[in-house]
């Protein structure tokens, strides 16, 4: 069944070109073709959010996006959010507030939370809980995830104020 087409994506700032079947799911493209294994597969039905990435400025669940739908898109995964020498505030905050256990949901959680804080830099607890409801965690009971995100928001706002 050779039905391959040419695709172009920008992933974590790097342009990628390859041949793939249009039906290939973006999560497989990212994980298996481009070896960005941070985003995970938890359900393949858009429920769990372990595969969350940012695509053209929006949070999407990469398990239900065909690579054909993503052609030309600009995509950020957890790998593009920070690096060991320059971690994203959320990456520090999740560690500080014990916002993760097995770590499987964490890349999707943090990627989604980074977008949430762009959309709403000063969320209430209720807004965080609502805004994160597309991401399931089986280990933490969310209490410390919510804490991590609220703490990161405060820190980012304080840093912004200090800069202004």
């Amino acid at each position, binding site marked *: 069944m050779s039905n391959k087409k040419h695709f172009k994506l920008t992933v974590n700032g790097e342009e990628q070109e390859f041949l793939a079947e249009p039906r290939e799911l973006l999560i497989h493209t990212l994980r298996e073709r481009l070896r960005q294994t941070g985003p995970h597969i938890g359900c393949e039905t858009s429920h769990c959010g372990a595969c969350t990435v940012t695509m053209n400025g929006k949070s999407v669940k990469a398990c239900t996006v065909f690579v054909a739908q993503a052609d030309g898109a600009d995509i950020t995964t957890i790998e593009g959010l920070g690096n060991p020498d320059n971690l994203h505030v959320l990456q520090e905050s999740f560690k500080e507030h014990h916002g993760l256990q097995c770590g499987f949901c964490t890349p999707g959680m943090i990627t989604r939370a980074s977008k949430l804080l762009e959309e709403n830099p000063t969320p209430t607890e209720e807004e965080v809980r609502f805004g994160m409801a597309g991401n*399931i965690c089986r280990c933490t009971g969310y209490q410390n995830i919510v804490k991590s995100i609220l703490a990161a928001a405060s820190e980012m706002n304080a840093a912004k104020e200090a800069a202004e």
Partner: protein
Amino acid sequence: MNKELTREERTDALGGMGCKRKRVEDARFTQGKGNYVDDIQLPGMLQGDFVRSPYAHARVKSIDSSAAMALDGVIAVLTAEDLAPLGLHWMPTLAGDKQMVLADGKVLFQGQEVAFVVAKDRYIAADAVELVEVDYEELPVLTDPFAAMESDVVLREDLLGDGGSLPDGAHGPRKHPNHIFTWEVGEKDATEQVLDEADVVAEETVYYHRTHPCPLETCGCVASMDKVNGKLTLHGTFQAPHAIRTVVSLISGIEEHNIRVISPDIGGGFGNKVGAYPGYVCSVVASIVTGVPVKWVEDRMENLMTTAFARDYHMTGKISATKEGKITGLHCHVTADHGGFDACADPTKFPAGFMNICTGSYDIPTAYLAVDGVYTNKAPGGVSYRCSFRVTEAAYFIERMVEVLAIELSMDAAELRRINFIKKEQFPYQSALGWEYDSGDYHTAWDKALKAVDYDGLRAEQAQRVEEFKAGKTRKLMGVGLTHFTEIVGAGPVKNCDILGLGMFDSCEIRIHPTGSAIARLGTISQGQGHATTFAQILATEIGLPADSITIEEGDTDTAPYGLGTYGSRSTPVAGAATAMAGRKIRAKAQMIAAYLLEVHDDDVEFDVDRFVIKGAPEKFKTMKEIAFAAYNQAIPGIEPGLEAVSYYDPPNMTYPFGAYVCVMDIDVDTGVTDIRRFYALDDCGTRINPMIIEGQVHGGLTEALAVALGQEIAYDDMGNVKTGTLMDFFLPTAWEVPNYETDHTVTPSPHHPIGAKGVGESPHVGGVPCFSNAVNDAFRAFGLRHTNMPHDHWRIWKTANDLGLHG
């Protein structure tokens, strides 16, 4: 030399037991650099995928894989016929039964593995699965264990003897072809007599529905047979990697030293990843046949439909008491639905796990328990979902029975518990069903919990709410859920605990490096519990080297000492004990080295936080770092070079964590919607290693309890179709549904554990489920409800209200 630190500063610098050490695992997980099974991509790796049965009970008349094989990129389609010559078409289960790896003439549950497709990638494999033609002949379906025990339909013809006779099963005589075992504990006649003569007897049937651990990462493996060296490497989501290695060796015939099992990072287990599944066997066979690595990872639907469910216990209880409320006897019968194969994961001598902890926290002098295991056309399993073996079932049973008894006695349920708790001075306590509880102080915990929530105030508010409801002023009722649970974890003593004949000890091996850092390897495997963080804390305190200088490694059978893995809250009670004991061996040798260096007798030095000091002269000392170096660079008479130790720890007893929980819930009678206003959880897990991690475990366990109590269910229709096969139907709570929890603790160390720790990961689940359920039941107590079954989803609650006539 820097200014000498105080003893307290030196202790803090170690990051040892009791401190809220941040997790060392988090750097890789927060940066997307974890290494889970599906992240593994080996050169030339093929992908496996299953053809599964759409029917719950059917004969497999023929399998035609020619169209699938004709598809470009398909390497093989394995069926039972291909596995039979190797003797691998069936495999042993952990419960003494056997299970089909691939359908051998028939299927017994929907989703059963029928054929295994091996292809160049996952898309081709999925296409090929669709092209395999299987001709089925449907058979009558049994989804109800009570009907199965009456039916003429035989599910397991393979277990019939000559002329249709009924040979004994792994756990003794069988009463019917669909019967697996009867397990009895306690005194039947004496209990019946106590019940006959009692002032008050409360009876109730409590169904603990079928559910599923559903870790966020599904089960999977990568099998890689190196034909040149004859070595098989098996990466997988295994909660017990060493046991898997032994099982693979026994069933494949490959010598154990030629098998390397690796559990990499695991995305949650909760019991789902204890067992051995057909996917593992097929992947191994496929890799042996093809000579290249083969990956199999189940999708979510396969996970929910086929790998290890939990519970499905129909429990009938009778509890007797004096007029004053002193419990005198407990009788429990369980009909246990095990599905098509008995693949429960329990220690061999306990076919119903530790269900005989069902006397709970109470001093019940006489008790009897009988469990009948039954085959049905449902998926096999029966694992302990976030609990020690069947302990959640036991805790739910007794905590519901006590509530029903309180109704029967017209007593307050908190007071009824208080007058029946085992007293502090009764420990070690011998229970009527055979356990020796190690330690506890239930009254202190209970009083602390009730005071924290202002229990009397809650009851007054509830009474007022009932009046307002009756007066038509509100449509919301209020429930106060209470639970005092006692767990039994840390399996277990080799004298009575084994799995497949393997004693349930655990192990730790420590190597101290010359510069005073170390690596310790254990027989367990973390699935999110943070072992790399907490076991280093135990060692830091035991050997006086900083936790940050100690690497903890688990999950590679080539390097780690043999152990039985992580489940049933056994890591801290068993491997944690091994860690402390191995640390003490290190310390014993360090003491001799220190004495030599300080030129005194061994008995003249003593351990002090991070050093050995001369008794009475603490200014003369050798730090553990100095001692480590000396172990590698000095010739010390009578002492071998190096500083290493191994401990295999066989626990003398289980540990018995306990807790007191209170849930305050508002219920909208017209919609059935529940609102958890408050949840207070007091846990006593003995010595606390890392309070931050304990609190995280409690939050997580309570949330899994909320899920199970309020909606999570594996449901079947009468045809054996799974009705809850995706996350659309199977309830996993999100941040939106979950409340904030209040955590608290008391500390009653285990007297037999080297550091007094009891384990905590499962307590909140064991205690949480009855607490949420009791809150729902309690809300309707004033309107005549005795008991309603879980899961308490909105519909069932609405129905309960409707049945009670509350909708006018």
